[in-house]
């Protein structure tokens, strides 16, 4: 039986009062923000409770909100969960501070989080405590820095290969100018 977001929120609030710090149900994809210390218990409850049965962690992303309009500076980890049994899905978010983003790993709850968390560490620098294999996955092992952060700067070179793109394009893009490509009339 497929539940909507409000019903899921009620069940989670009943079992873990106060752990949902914020919930937005009126947007296109309703989401809850969960307290980062309670995320593992909430995740296990969502997976094991028979009426919720969110067995699949469909997508695990990280978003950097530095410099965004009307939003405070933070890094968010966004989880999209799917239930194959009941055919419903929800979005969970965990807010982390930008200078020291750390949270406990969700590898024990959904095994697929292993590689997704390695990617989040690689591109954003989020440290997942208790992860079995905390290494870079996409970038070379000796790369320095975390590129998808908004305050990342191009390095000059890497092992003798010039990395930074030529002056004009990179500075125009990073300076906020909108470089349009596409079907403009």
């Amino acid at each position: 039986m497929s539940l909507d977001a409000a019903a899921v929120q009620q069940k989670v609030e009943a079992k873990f009062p106060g752990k949902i710090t914020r919930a937005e149900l009126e947007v296109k994809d309703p989401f809850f923000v969960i307290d980062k210390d309670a995320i593992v218990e909430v995740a296990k409850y969502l997976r094991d409770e028979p009426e919720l049965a969110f067995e699949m962690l469909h997508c695990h992303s990280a978003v950097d909100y530095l410099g965004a309009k009307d939003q405070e500076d933070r890094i968010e980890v966004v989880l999209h969960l799917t239930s194959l049994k009941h055919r419903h899905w929800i979005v969970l978010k965990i807010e982390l501070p930008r200078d020291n983003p750390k949270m406990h790993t969700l590898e024990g709850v959904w095994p697929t989080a292993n590689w997704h968390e390695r990617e989040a560490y690689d591109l954003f620098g989020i440290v997942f405590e208790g992860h079995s294999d905390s290494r870079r996955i996409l970038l070379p092992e000796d790369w320095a820095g975390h590129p998808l952060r908004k305050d990342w700067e191009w390095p000059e070179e890497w092992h003798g290969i010039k990395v930074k793109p030529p002056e004009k394009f990179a500075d125009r893009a990073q300076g906020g100018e909108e470089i349009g490509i596409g079907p403009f009339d």
Partner: protein
Amino acid sequence: MSTQPQYKDLEPDEAYAFKLEDLEEDEMILNMGPQHPSTHGVLRIELKTDGEIVKDAQPHIGYLHRNFEKHAENIDYQGIIPFTDRLDYVGSMGNSLSFAFVGEKLMGIEVNERVQSIRVLTAELQRIASHLLALGTYGLDIGAFTPFLHAFREREKVLDLFEWLCGARLLYNFNWIGGVSHDLPDQWTDRVKVFLDQFEPVIDELHNLLSYNKIFTKRTATIGIIPPELAIGYALTGPNLRGSGIKWDTRKEDPYCGYEKYAFDVPVGQGRFGPIGSCWDRYYVRVEEMRQSVRILRQAIEKLPTEGDVHETVPKRVKPKPGEVYARTEAPRGELGFYIVSDGGLIPMRVKARSPCFVAMSIFREIAKGEMIADMVAIIGSLDIVLGEIDR
């Protein structure tokens, strides 16, 4: 000098995950290196083997990492579509369809029925072309040279149809946010019907050549077993999940583009020559999916509306309101989804591509333990990976 951290020079041993000190007697660490004819791209697998039997295997990816997600933060929405083509370069109609679908959801645009039918036509033709490549190269990896040529001969016909439609054979820039780039030329659907009439017997030909061949079944039906709980735990989707017996298809569960109007079956693996969830089951699901795609194509051609402008709902400038959306579609390799966060400007704030091959590669370590080195190739081929999508 910038204030950034500096890279350091690695010792050669640091590129390996397995350590020499942990080896037992008679074990060795081998590299199925980034350049290998059978790994379907630049994929490096580090094997710890005891003679021929693999004790442990670690895939290393990232050799094709082009940082699609960082590029997407510097380019406006319609300009990202060619970049999405290059993610899964074998099935690129599916990628741009997925991105255009998410963009339309973000902007609140509803496309007209002719655009939806055209999208279904091209997506299903692309599914046939992509599965032909997957099956042909799978046979080639196992050692069967003939089915590869038959599959590619048919694939050339599909690519010719695409070239007639939009000018490109492999990377099309076809699905835009709000519409498609070209309308169907005259008599295109007639030629598609001719192709379908001639293609259905070829599926049976493929079965005669490869599927029930005793060598092929012995090599594939008892290895690479993925039990259903493991498949769900690792978030597999698409033919990899359906090969383990779970009937889940996004076109049926969460229909988009008018798929609810078409009648088709969803093939699942039944464990015909071995346990359910073997490499053979995944291969068989792909062959039967081609048959169902032919069915959908015939219905789509019949129901194609003759009226409708394909550029009717393409916006002049894509400037969505602040918000975020995630949507998924059934690409040939699984569920491809894009998660887009918009801050109200012309350029997205964050685009995340949820890639089905990335999760398929992550299960490799679990199912490769205890098999022989030659079976590694069979397992990778059955997961049907494309490195462009894994590394993005």
